[in-house]
């Protein structure tokens, strides 16, 4: 992983987090579900650079959202780190079909919402209800899949440009 890649990755995560909280959170939230741009970015990085990159970007992005939110610090870092690693296992598969990134993004959204819900309940600090989580889930998944259609190719192209010797994983 090159220095420029780390720098641009950090910048991308910060930008995604700020866009998610200020712009995307203003979109209509049916059932309370909102777009999760940082998660989509984590999935995109994982698909282009593999599980290690996914885990690292996931941890960083989740931690930033943790610090700006109300829930205990570390909940989203854990969730996004795990989801990033798992999404990274699909790296290289996206050449098979353009649907693979969308499918991975959808699965990642479901996984992240469920994983966060369970962790939040276990932590005992955040009142969560299974009903509330299920109601918002379809909206979040739809938004994320739509975002992934743009973010995944963009990140893949950027990653290729920043990697002189081709694919790393």
């Amino acid at each position, binding site marked *: 992983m090159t220095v420029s890649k780390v720098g641009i990755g950090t910048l991308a995560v910060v930008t995604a987090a700020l866009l998610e909280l200020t712009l995307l959170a203003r979109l209509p939230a049916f059932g309370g579900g909102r777009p999760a741009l940082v998660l989509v970015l984590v999935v995109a990085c994982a698909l282009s650079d593999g599980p290690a990159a996914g885990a690292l970007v996931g941890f960083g992005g989740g931690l930033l959202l943790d610090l700006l*939110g109300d829930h205990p610090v570390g909940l989203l870092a854990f969730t996004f780190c795990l989801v990033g690693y798992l999404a990274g296992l699909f790296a290289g598969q996206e050449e098979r079909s353009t649907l693979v990134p969308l499918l991975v993004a959808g699965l990642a959204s479901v996984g992240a919402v469920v994983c966060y819900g369970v962790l939040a309940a276990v932590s005992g600090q955040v009142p969560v209800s299974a009903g509330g989580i299920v109601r918002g889930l379809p909206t979040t998944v739809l938004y994320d899949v739509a975002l992934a259609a743009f973010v995944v190719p963009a990140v893949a192209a950027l990653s290729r440009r920043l990697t002189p010797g081709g694919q790393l994983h």
Partner: protein
Amino acid sequence: MRGPRRARLLLVLLLLTAVTLVTLDVRAGRAGPLAGLRSAAGDTFGPVERALSGAFRPVGGFFAGLGHLGGYKDEYDAEARQVAQLQAQLRMTERVRAQAQHYAELFGLASRGQYRIVAARPVAFSGGIDTESTVTIDAGSRDGVRVGEAVVTGSGLVGKVIRVSSSTSLVVLLVDPSLKVGVRVASTSAIGDVQGQGLGKPLRLRLFDLRATIKVGDQLVTLGGTGETYVPEVPVGTVTAIEQVPGGLYKAALVNPYVDFGGLDILGVVIANPTPPKRGAVLPPPPAASARPTPARGASPTPSGRPSP
């Protein structure tokens, strides 16, 4: 170069770090070592959020406007709610009305000069995955906002400040399940509390007096009082349905909040007096400097406020 074994090791290390962070944060509560990190993040990103939010505000207005295109139902609902409110007012007897007037005067006096309102606008909202209902506002410690203070609009209570950085504050909304607010039924003065059930769902009211009567259309106001940061008599919502609690220790009802949490625009943070008045001190010093007699009800002193679309 980077095999799956190294990736697995990295994953385990990061997950352990995250678990450690959660443990630290949960154990230490609001004053732990991570509080400093949080306020640093707020100080760093607050100004950026404020700047971005100014640019993105029309987006929210656009979608709010879309909602109003098919808005006959909204309009009908608003009318229906108004009728319900008027009916509830009519049902108050003359005596209770006089009493209410009396208390309103008392609280008006008590609050005159004791509270100050800082106007603020939302700059950021809770993110995609977490379940909390919070909003970041563009007023912070340098504007005098402190943790625990009540946030209101012209129509009623919005929530409570839970974290403050220099230029922004984090507010937990009334609809968030983590917030519980002491309330009083306006017509009968029965005491209870309301708790949120998530965005888009009604609040839940619990009345502790089993003999208290509660009916659809009853209005709720905040209880306030000593030890609470809430200003008393801020409107909270109207009762929309009575719940049956079999063998319960309390009476329950569903409450529709007055504030539209989907279209928050101009808010006011009720800044408490730095030196809270003693219990008996109902009469305030001469109100020469006070501009608004009942600040709890008026929210936006800024004339630059954009009317909601």
